[in-house]
C-alpha cells in the first residue's frame, strides 16, 4: 500500500466553557480516545460534540465555516497560541498529526477588550469590520470604472499588494498582542490599497481614519512585540506596521 492506514491518537482537552457572555466561565476537562490523526482539530471538536450531545450535554461552541483556512471564522488559543503551534495555519487546518499521543491541549477563546466573549470559544470580532468602514476601500461607484488595463501595475507591486490583501480578518493578531492591538490588521489594509495606484487618492485620509477607528473600538497600540506576525495564518509581515508609521509622516 502506498498509503498507510490512518494512525490514531488520544488527547486530553481542557476547554473554556462559558454558557453566555454574562455567565461565569472555567476550564472543563475532556478526553478523546483513538481519534484519527487525519482529523483537523475542529473535526476533533465535532467528534467531542457528538459525544456531548449523546450524553445530553451542551456541545462546545466555536466559530467555523469554510474549514479550509480562508473564511477567517475559526480561531481560538491552543496552549496559549492563537491557531495553535503550526505556522501559517488557521485552527481548521491544524491536523492532529501535529500532536503527540496523550498530549494535553488547552483551548480558550481569543481575549481582547474589543472582542467581547460570546460563548465558550466564540468571540465577537465585528470591531474589525467597523475599522474597515472608516475607509478601507477605494471610493468607486459601480459602472464608473476605467478600462482595466488602463492602469498599469508592476508584477512585484501587485504581488506585494496581494500579500497584504490576503488578510482573512480572523483576529489572531489581536489575540496574541499583549496590548490587544489591531495594528497588523490595519497596516495590512492600508498597505494593500496604499501600494496600488487605485488607492492613492484616499491614501492619506485612510491612514488616519483607520487608525483612529481602531483606537475608538478599544484596541490598544502597537508595542513592537511582533507576536502578531508569528501567529498570522497568512504570514503578513509586521514590517507593514513600520510602513504604516512612515505613512503617518508622509
Amino acid at each position: 500500500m502506498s498509503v498507510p492506514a490512518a494512525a490514531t491518537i488520544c488527547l486530553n482537552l481542557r476547554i473554556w466553557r462559558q454558557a453566555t457572555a454574562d455567565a461565569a466561565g472555567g476550564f472543563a476537562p475532556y478526553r478523546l480516545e483513538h481519534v484519527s490523526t487525519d482529523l483537523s482539530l475542529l473535526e476533533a471538536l465535532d467528534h467531542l460534540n457528538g459525544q456531548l450531545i449523546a450524553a445530553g450535554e451542551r456541545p462546545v461552541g466555536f466559530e467555523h465555516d469554510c474549514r479550509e483556512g480562508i473564511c477567517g471564522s475559526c480561531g481560538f488559543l491552543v496552549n496559549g497560541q492563537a491557531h495553535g503551534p503550526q505556522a501559517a495555519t488557521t485552527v481548521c487546518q491544524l491536523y492532529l498529526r501535529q500532536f503527540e499521543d496523550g498530549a494535553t491541549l488547552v483551548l480558550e477563546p481569543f481575549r481582547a477588550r474589543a472582542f467581547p466573549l460570546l460563548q465558550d470559544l466564540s468571540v465577537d470580532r465585528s470591531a474589525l469590520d467597523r475599522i474597515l468602514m472608516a475607509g478601507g476601500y477605494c471610493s468607486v461607484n459601480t459602472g464608473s470604472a476605467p478600462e482595466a488595463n488602463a492602469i498599469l501595475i508592476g508584477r512585484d507591486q501587485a504581488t506585494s499588494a496581494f500579500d497584504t490583501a490576503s488578510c482573512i480578518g480572523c483576529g489572531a493578531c489581536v489575540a496574541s498582542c499583549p496590548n490587544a492591538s489591531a495594528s497588523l490588521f490595519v497596516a495590512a489594509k492600508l498597505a494593500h490599497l496604499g501600494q496600488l495606484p487605485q488607492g492613492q487618492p484616499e491614501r492619506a485620509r485612510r491612514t488616519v481614519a483607520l487608525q483612529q477607528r481602531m483606537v475608538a473600538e478599544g484596541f490598544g497600540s502597537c508595542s513592537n512585540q511582533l507576536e502578531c506576525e508569528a501567529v498570522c495564518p497568512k504570514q503578513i509581515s509586521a514590517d507593514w506596521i513600520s510602513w504604516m508609521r512612515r505613512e503617518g509622516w508622509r
Partner: protein
Amino acid sequence: MTTTMPRLDPRLPTGPLNSAWQRTREGLPLISPANKRRLRVLVVGTGLAGSSAAATLAEQGYQVQVLTYHDSPRRAHSVAAQGGINAARNYAGDGDSVERLFRDTVRGGDFRAREAGCHRLAEISGAIIDQCVAQGVPFAREYGGLLAQRNFGGALVSRTFYARGQTGQQLLYGAMQALLRQVEAGRVELFTRREMLELITVEGVARGVVCRHRLSGELETFLADAVVLATGGYSNVFHRSTNAVQSNASAIWRAHGHGALFANPCFTQIHPTCIPSGDGDQSKLTLMSESLRNDGRLWLPLQAGDQRDPKTIPEAERDYFLERQYPTYGNMVPRDVASRRARELCLAGHGVGPGGRSVYLDLAEAIARDGKGAIESRYGNLLEMYARISGEDPTATPMRIYPAPHYTMGGLWVDYHLMSTIPGLFVLGEANFSEHGANRLGASALMQGLADGYFIAPATITAWLAGQPHPAVPLDHPACREARAAAAARIAALLVPAGDGPAGPGTGGAGRRPVEAYHQQLGQLMIEACGISRQGDRLRAALLELEALRGRCGEELRVVDHGTPNNPELEKALRLQDFLGLAELMLRDALAREESCGAHFREEHQSADGEARRDDANFAHIAAWEHRPGAEPRRHSEPLSYTAIPFSQRNYR
C-alpha cells in the same frame, strides 16, 4: 406531468442578441433620486452576488438592509473560490471575444441555458474586471504591468483573470469593502448572524423575511419594497461537499414553499479535483482548483489493484486516461467529463489511496519543465493546503484527488430580469438557476455572481420598483404574524427540554443523536443515487428511502434546549429539514429528465463510447417545479430555442 404555465414568462428580449441587453436596459423605467431614498430593498446573503448588489443599490440611493448568517460579510463562501473569473477581453490575443465566451457558455451548459442570458453574461464580463480593478483587487499581472490571464477547463483560450489561488477572496473583499463604505455612509444597514427562516408575501408580492438571530434566538421581521436572495447553492444536500459546512438551502427552499418555482434542481456539479475523504469524521471535501489541471496530469495505474508507491510505477504502466480518451482537450475537459471518467476507473478497481477512491494528479512533468519554484508560485496556497490536509508533499509525490459536489446550477427559477415567480423576489448568483445550463464552466461562477449583483439586478430591481405601488406593511400584518408563527412552530417542534427526555427508537433519548448523523444518511443516499451518475431504478428506490428517512427524522430528530439563547444544533436541524425537502425534488427532477446532459448523466442515455446522449426533441427546456401543499410537486417547462448557435453535441475528444 409537465405543463407550460401561463405565468412562466421569461421576459426574454426580442431582436438581435448582441444588442439585446443594451436595448432592454435603455427601455427600463427609472426612478428619481428623491423617490429612491424612500424605497427599501432587503438583501439576504453577502457573498459576491449579495454584497455587490447591496453596495450598488445603496450607491444608487436606495435604503438597503443586508442580512447574513455570518458574523461578517467577509466570511461568505465566495471567499473560497480559488481559480479565477472569466472575461472576454482578448488581452491574451488568442482570438477570444464576447461571441466566443457566449458560445462556450451555451455549449458548456450543454444547451440547457437561455441564449439571451448567456450572451448578456459574456457582454458584461469585461466591465466586471474594470470594476474590480478600480476597487483595488490585486489581480495577477505580467511584468509590463498588464493583467495576466490563464487557461481554464472547458476553454481553448486564456480568459481567466486570477489573484493567485484566492480569486474569490479578493473579489469578495472588493465587494465587501464597497458594501462597508455604504454602511459607513448610512445607506446600508448590516444585520449579521441572522438566518432567514421564512419569506413574507403580501397579496402574492415578496415584502420581507423572518429571521432568527443566531445569538439571541429571537425571531425578527424585516420588511422591504423588494427582496433579494443571494444565498448560494445547495451542494451540502450531499452532506460533504466543497461548500462551507454551514452553507444551506433554507432561504431558497422556504421561498419555493411560498410559490417560487425551482428550476433544474438535478443540475448539480461534481468537481473532479478535490481532496478525497479519509476518516468518517472528516467534515469537508476541500477543492483543489482545476487550474492545477493546466500543469497536472491525471493518471491511474494501468493494472487494476496496483497499490505500489506511485513514484515507482513506470511510465508504460500508467494510464493518463483523459489524455488517452480526449486527445484534443486532454486534462482540460469539462468538470463533468473528468469526474465521470475518474469514477468509472475507480469503480473498475484502478483507484488508488484508502478504499481505492482517488486518482493521481501529477505535477512532476510541469516541475521538470518549469522548475519547482515556478509551480509553487503559480499554485502556492493550494499546494500548502494539500500538504496540510493530506500530510504529503505534492511536489514530491503525485496528489490524490477525487470528485466532490461543488456547485449547483439549479436554483430558483428567474426570468431575464432575475425575478422569481413571486413578484418582487429577485434571486442572484448560485441561488438562481440561470446561465450555466446543465454544467458550469470553470471560472464562470464569479463572473455570474458579480454580473447579477453589480450590473443586472440594480437595473431590473429599479424597473420593478418603478412600476409598483408600495403600500406600507405593518409588522402586525397577518402575513407577518403567520410567517413568524410558522417559524416559531418549527422551532418549538424540534426542541426538547434538557434532562432525560422520552426515549426515541435507537436514539437513547430525544435530542441525544447529533443532527449530523441524519445529514450523513441523507448525503450517502443522495451521492449514490443523484451524484456523478444516475439511473432510473436507483432514483426510484432513493425516493422511497428518502421518504423513510424523512419519516425517521420527523419522529426522532430533536434538539435539546440547554437554556442558552443560541443553539447551533437547532440551526443544523432547521437546515436539514429543508435539505430533506429539496433532496426529494432533486430526485424527481433527475428521474423526469430522461436524457443525459451536462452534469446530469443518466446511464440509460449514453452513446456506445459512454458519452452523454442529449434528447433535444423532448428535453430542450428548463424544468421548473411548483410546490403544492399536500400534493406531489408539479413540473412545468420553459422551452429553450437557439438562434445563434445550432444544437451540437459536445465533443472534447
